[in-house]
């Protein structure tokens, strides 16, 4: 199987673990006419079963931990986890709060970090490109 087909048809599932909505509306903005990621074959799907990429936002509230793990398990391999935003990457301004279990990489393995509070839509698209690179590496290692 060619990896090219894989790269050009990434289906994305958006998982919010307690974010402030800032990253989430930028992810949505990526879909809208101005940025239109569908032209790269990227599209948001409604269930993790269909997803290739998990877009995770938010600093992971304690109540969300089992759900994050379950969603990760529900996503079929090969899969890539992308963290959008500072909170998800390293806790951000909420790091010291008593109700956090994150950042996300302490709960599930993360491949791509897109920092920013929130990152610009362009940065999110670039993050997806980074995910492609990661997939290529996986192919070279014979994982795919």
């Amino acid at each position: 199987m060619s990896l090219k087909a894989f790269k050009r048809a990434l289906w994305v599932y958006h998982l919010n673990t307690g974010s402030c909505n800032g990253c989430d509306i930028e992810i949505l903005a990526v879909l809208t006419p101005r940025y239109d990621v569908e032209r790269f074959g990227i599209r948001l799907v409604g269930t993790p079963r269909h997803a290739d990429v998990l877009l995770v936002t938010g600093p992971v509230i304690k109540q969300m931990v089992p759900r994050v793990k379950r969603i990760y398990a529900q996503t079929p391999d090969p899969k890539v986890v992308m963290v959008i935003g500072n909170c998800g990457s390293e806790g951000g301004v909420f790091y010291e709060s008593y109700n956090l279990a994150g950042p996300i990489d302490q709960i599930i393995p993360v491949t791509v970090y897109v920092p920013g509070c929130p990152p610009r839509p362009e940065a999110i698209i670039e993050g997806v490109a980074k995910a492609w690179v990661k997939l290529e590496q996986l192919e070279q290692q014979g994982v795919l």
Partner: protein
Amino acid sequence: MEILSPQAIVKSFKTTLGGGLIDSKISEREIAVKKNLFITIWINVKKEAFRKAVEHICQLQEYPHLAIISSSDLGDSVELIYHFTIYYGNHLQEISLGLRVRLPKKDLKIPTVTDLIPGAVFTERETQEMIGVEVVGIPDNRRLFLPEDFPEGVYPWRTDEKGLPNDMFRVLPGRKPK
């Protein structure tokens, strides 16, 4: 309904509550170019007079808007402020009214106001779980924000021994815990 001046409002509290009123303050701030006033009234009442004060606010305005209850841990007591707004719907005539009541730590109980203001349930629930004040007669006794496995008897906004223990939160590397 007749719109009273801030001074008249304070006066009406004095007549209604009598000795139940500890003190009061009117704070006025001039805003922007035209220097219109942002008026806040602070009413400090005794715990016994609290219900009567809320009833009196309901007299001043048919449906007073209870925005939120704020709570502060003052060491030996907990202070609740019921933030009301009255006279809304009229251009620049709204008044923010803070009803302050102090509860000693030995007896952290306050009667509910949900019979007068049905929308107050959320904020009373939050007050219960965050500062540990028991709201007597609250129609819904569950937690609002905290997870179900959050330990009993720990209240995040308390600063005494019932506050958060040190192992419940993290400290950024390189930062001193306060």
